[in-house]
């Protein structure tokens, strides 16, 4: 006995500490499921301490009838049980409160009284063990504990049953069904708003700001600052003023953190006060075109609509079953938290097996949405689906269903939406299931069903919406341009590859700078051989489409690489590139980003560079300069180009000189190739000169100023 007593007392002490901890740090706690179960036993367990404490009280009244030693033992045992059960009850209570959604004020009172009760019974227990105890302390503590017990019991009952539960049958007036014809507009439309957003603080028991809105007379009388509504003058009514205060204002109503009124609710309240804040006037007493009546009707409508969320009567499948229904290729989930209704989706048709559809029989009552889009489901498989009797939405788009199995679905009396787009279902096959009473929409785009047949269906089944082809555009469209697959500078021997993403397209092209046409230009059949830089122009054509726009790209092909390159005059300081090497490093730039290493820019100086070919110079027939054409940025083709040739830098002569055609107006920016044909020669040294435009033309925004010349590569063929 003594050992048991010691252990119990220690255990009870431990719980006391835990309780005090919880009282202060409850918000830090997350509750595991098994403790939630314990929490839910609170309403049962709580009767034990009540019973034992009352029993103790009775014992004490009759204590003279017992032997003193026996009495002490009984008392000790009872006290121990009372203290233990009070502690456990309080602990379970905490568990329950963490999971539940209770009003804050009453809950706090209940918590504190529960903990105090637990502590005081423990105190009494310890005190009673003490031999030299003072009787007065013991009895007063005991009476106090009974008082706390009553308080805890009361606050607890308020939490479970609501206020005034016990006396409600005597005091409450009967609340009947509301009838739109007899009930007042206030009761029907305005009060529900106040009930939701105001009553929780402005009621008989709380009365914040001394305002009570739950009683019509007191509502009219107002709060500590006087009337809150001025009949017929909503803007001056305190209630409306407070609603419109900024949210961070202390007087703003409802206070920050509480559910706020939405704009519609505010305008409804305003309209009601404006029209006189009448509490009695019936809906039917208002004129039909009265704004307030219209708003009230909307409000009532939306309240009804909100309650329309479907309630299912079947039981939810267990979590384990739902988990079993989930595989990487099949997803099953409740349509929302705590809903028994399930949605199941199938994905990745390569992984579909008919067995995975059959497995769904385990949730055949719960299955409400089934998505089999693109799965190889056939008519035979529809017999499985016909067992899912609560199915509301079925997606069979692009399945292998042909139609003869559709009749099986007739038994799906809840089916509202059926998607058959992209299947081979005919009108006749579809007809067989259109009598399903709930059916509201059927999707038959991309099926053998024709437009006129759809019209017939609509006539026979006016309640059902049929969605057929939505896009009817007989006009011709242009194709997209072909795509060049090669990137950057083309290596010697590399072939040009063109592509178009639409099947059945003919690509026609030219390499000579002329525009290709859809009939006589070369047809692209295999990759194109190119030996030197060319201007590729290509377009795509296909029957039923307009030919695409022109793809115009200069394809730069690798040439002979000089062994040494020198810049005879430096490039502009702002655009130095990487020096002379820039010209032969095979790096192309972009015409809109010039301040980067692949470009050399010239303005004050002309471009002048020397190129040395080793001991065995190749036969050169052509030189190509790759330059930027960006007129808006003052970047023009060179005005004049010269090519010099010789054995070395000192012994050279002019072998070619030409003037370059200059643009007549602005054009979009591009990368251009200037080809200079030479008489075939084998000089060891070439000098190339390109002079920037000296004065920009009159039509240009910078007329008279110097132009720029930008070069990124040079090629020798």
């Amino acid at each position: 006995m003594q050992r048991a007593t010691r252990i119990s007392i220690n255990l009870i002490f431990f719980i006391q500490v835990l309780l005090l901890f919880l009282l202060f740090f409850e918000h830090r706690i997350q509750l595991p499921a098994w403790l939630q179960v314990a929490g839910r036993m609170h309403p049962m367990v709580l009767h034990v301490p009540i019973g034992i404490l009352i029993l103790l009280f009775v014992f004490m009244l009759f204590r003279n009838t017992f032997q003193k030693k026996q009495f002490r033992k009984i008392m000790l045992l009872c006290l121990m049980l009372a203290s233990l059960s009070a502690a456990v009850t309080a602990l379970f209570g905490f568990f329950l409160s963490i999971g539940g959604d209770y009003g804050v004020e009453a809950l706090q009172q209940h918590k504190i009284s529960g903990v105090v009760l637990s502590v005081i019974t423990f105190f009494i227990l310890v005190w009673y063990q003490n031999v030299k105890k003072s009787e007065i302390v013991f009895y007063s503590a005991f009476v106090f504990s009974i008082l706390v017990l009553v308080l805890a019991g009361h606050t607890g009952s308020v939490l479970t049953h609501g206020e005034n539960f016990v006396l409600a049958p005597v005091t409450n007036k009967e609340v009947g069904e509301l009838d739109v014809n007899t009930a007042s507009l206030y009761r029907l439309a305005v009060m529900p708003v106040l009930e939701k957003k105001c009553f929780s603080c402005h009621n008989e028991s709380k009365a914040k700001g001394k305002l009570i809105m739950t009683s019509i007379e007191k509502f009219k009388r107002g709060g500590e600052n006087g009337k809150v509504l001025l009949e017929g003058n909503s803007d001056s009514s305190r209630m409306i003023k407070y609603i419109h205060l900024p949210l961070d204002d202390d007087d703003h109503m409802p206070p920050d953190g509480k559910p706020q009124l939405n704009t519609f609710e505010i305008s409804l309240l305003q309209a009601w006060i404006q029209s006189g804040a009448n509490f009695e006037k019936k809906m039917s007493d208002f004129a039909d075109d009265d704004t307030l009546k219209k708003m009230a009707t909307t409000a009532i409508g939306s309240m009804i609509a909100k309650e329309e969320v479907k309630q299912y009567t079947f039981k939810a499948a267990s979590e384990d079953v739902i988990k079993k229904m989930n595989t990487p290729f099949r997803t099953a989930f409740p349509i929302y938290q705590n809903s028994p209704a399930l949605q199941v989706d199938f994905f990745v048709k390569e992984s579909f097996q008919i067995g995975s559809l059959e497995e769904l029989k385990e949730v055949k009552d719960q299955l409400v949405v089934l998505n089999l889009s693109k799965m190889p489901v056939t008519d035979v498989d529809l017999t499985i689906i016909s067992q899912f009797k609560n199915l509301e939405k079925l997606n069979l788009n692009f399945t292998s269903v042909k139609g003869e199995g559709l009749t099986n679905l007739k038994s799906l009396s809840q089916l509202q939406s059926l998607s058959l787009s992209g299947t081979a279902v005919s009108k006749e096959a579809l007809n067989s299931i259109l009598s399903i009473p709930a059916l509201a929409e059927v999707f038959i785009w991309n099926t053998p069903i024709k437009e006129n047949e759809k019209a017939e269906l609509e006539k026979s089944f006016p309640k059902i919406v049929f969605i057929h082809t939505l896009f009817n555009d007989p006009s011709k469209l242009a194709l997209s341009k072909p795509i060049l697959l090669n990137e950057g500078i083309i290596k010697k021997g590399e072939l040009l590859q063109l592509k178009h993403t639409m099947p059945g397209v003919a690509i026609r092209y030219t390499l000579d700078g002329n525009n290709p046409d859809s009939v006589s230009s070369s047809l692209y059949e295999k990759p194109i051989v190119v030996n030197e830089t060319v201007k590729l122009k290509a377009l795509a054509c296909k029957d039923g489409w307009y030919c695409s726009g022109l793809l115009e790209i200069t394809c730069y092909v690798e040439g002979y690489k000089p062994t040494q390159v020198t810049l005879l005059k430096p490039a502009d300081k702002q655009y130095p590139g990487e020096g002379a090497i820039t010209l032969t490093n095979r790096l192309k730039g972009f015409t809109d980003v010039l301040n980067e290493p692949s470009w050399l820019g010239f303005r004050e100086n002309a471009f002048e560079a020397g190129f040395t070919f080793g001991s065995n110079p190749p036969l050169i027939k052509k030189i190509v300069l790759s330059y930027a054409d960006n007129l808006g940025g003052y970047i023009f083709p060179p005005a004049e180009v010269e090519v010099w040739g010789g054995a070395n830098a000192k012994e050279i002569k002019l072998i070619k000189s030409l003037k370059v055609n200059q643009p007549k107006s602005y054009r979009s920016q591009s990368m251009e190739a200037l080809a200079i044909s030479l008489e075939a020669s084998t000089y060891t040294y070439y000098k190339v000169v390109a002079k920037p435009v000296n004065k920009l033309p009159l039509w240009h925004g910078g007329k008279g100023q110097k132009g720029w010349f930008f070069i990124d590569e040079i090629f020798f063929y």
Partner: protein
Amino acid sequence: MSKEFIDHRFHITRRHFLGKVSLGLGSVALGSLLIPDLLSKSEGPIQGLGLPHFAPKAKRVIYLFQNGAPSQLESFDYKPMLNKMTGQELPASIRMGQRLTGMTANQAKFPLVGSNFKFNQYGKSGAWVSEIFPNIAKVTDDICFIKSMHTEAINHDPALTFMQTGAQQGNRPSMGAWLSYGLGSENKNLPAYCVLLSRGRGNGQGVYSKLWTNGFLDSVHQGVQFSSSEERVLYLKDPEGRDRADRRKMLDNLAQLNDLNYKEFGDPEIQTRVQQYEMAYRMQTAVPELTDLTKEPDNIIKMYGADCLVPGTYAANCLLARKLSEAGVRFVQLYHQGWDQHGNMTGEMTLQAEDVDRSTAALIMDLKQRGLLDETLVIWGGEFGRTNYCQGSFSKDNYGRDHHPRAYTIWMAGGGVKSGITYGETDEFGYNIVKDPVHVNDFHATILHLMGLNHEQLTYKHLGRRYKLTDVAGKVVEGILS
């Protein structure tokens, strides 16, 4: 204590905990209070799939973000008054001294300028649409225009970040990440959040990965950016000489190594990584089918326009967005760049509209004819609006407009929004909102609501406080809910 430590503790397994702690029953009870799953066998609710708080109207989102801020005055917010008063000064009573950007604040004059494009009314709803959007005009009865959007940011980066993450500074999770966190992935073979980019032909503004970041959420919720090349998801192909079985073996061995690491450190990111490897493995089967657009029937190609077969175009992204959404991807985010018309409004706006008009309308029709529009929310719009006065030199044929955060138009279609309506209204100068303003936070709250989530309950604890997409603001716009 820093978040990492707390997180670490929360992810300790039962064995881990019991192995390291041996203080008896009391400790276990206390421990189990701190770590809820300590004594339970199950791994929590269905893995990787959160559930809506209430019955959702929309299951998936396709957000067609028009990056750079398309002008509402040249598209959907018709203001004939501006045409009447073109060239006249913006009345001070309208501007009310509100702040302007540094680009026009020093302008000596603010001449009003009307749209160069004609407007007409379309559909049963009689919505006004400019002539450069002839195809969107055909689907107005499926659209809900919101003409009263407003934001606090006045420049692209903060405004864009605000629209995407609910905060003007970066580092918060983006909307798609929140939805992935709240609802999980419907299809376990694909990421829940995909991002598709395209460049327009007008003055462009950049997009960057902070717009589709997971922020402080697990990295599994990060948006997956698809490539604009022909290979839309890079590195999905098996390397030459290696087959799928090799890959499987490699992943299994790698998973064992990762598991060792996880047991040692308990870092949840390790598990995220393993899950991502597994998903990538399954994507090897799922993605090629999705990104192969050549099997689409001819009428679909025609509907979206020929460009839809050219990877990296807006049209191709719209078509791909439909395919991804159809395959259960929770949030598909498109960005189309080039809408920043400070100048050359007439020319650039025409090109930009040409890029998006046909395929946007096609997306709506395509979803509808498959029965998917009522469960897919399509959103079209930019980060703010443009001013009713001209920026820079003003001529009759051409003009520019500066940033205008005070009022702009976006539209939504499908999943749970009323169709064929216009919500909100601006004044006749298109400058201030006169009816039903919708703030960016309200916009977010509404989207979450449509997806079945209460924006005040979808929270994540980070740095000692609970974060929400809407932070401490946001009201659901009841007026647009169907």
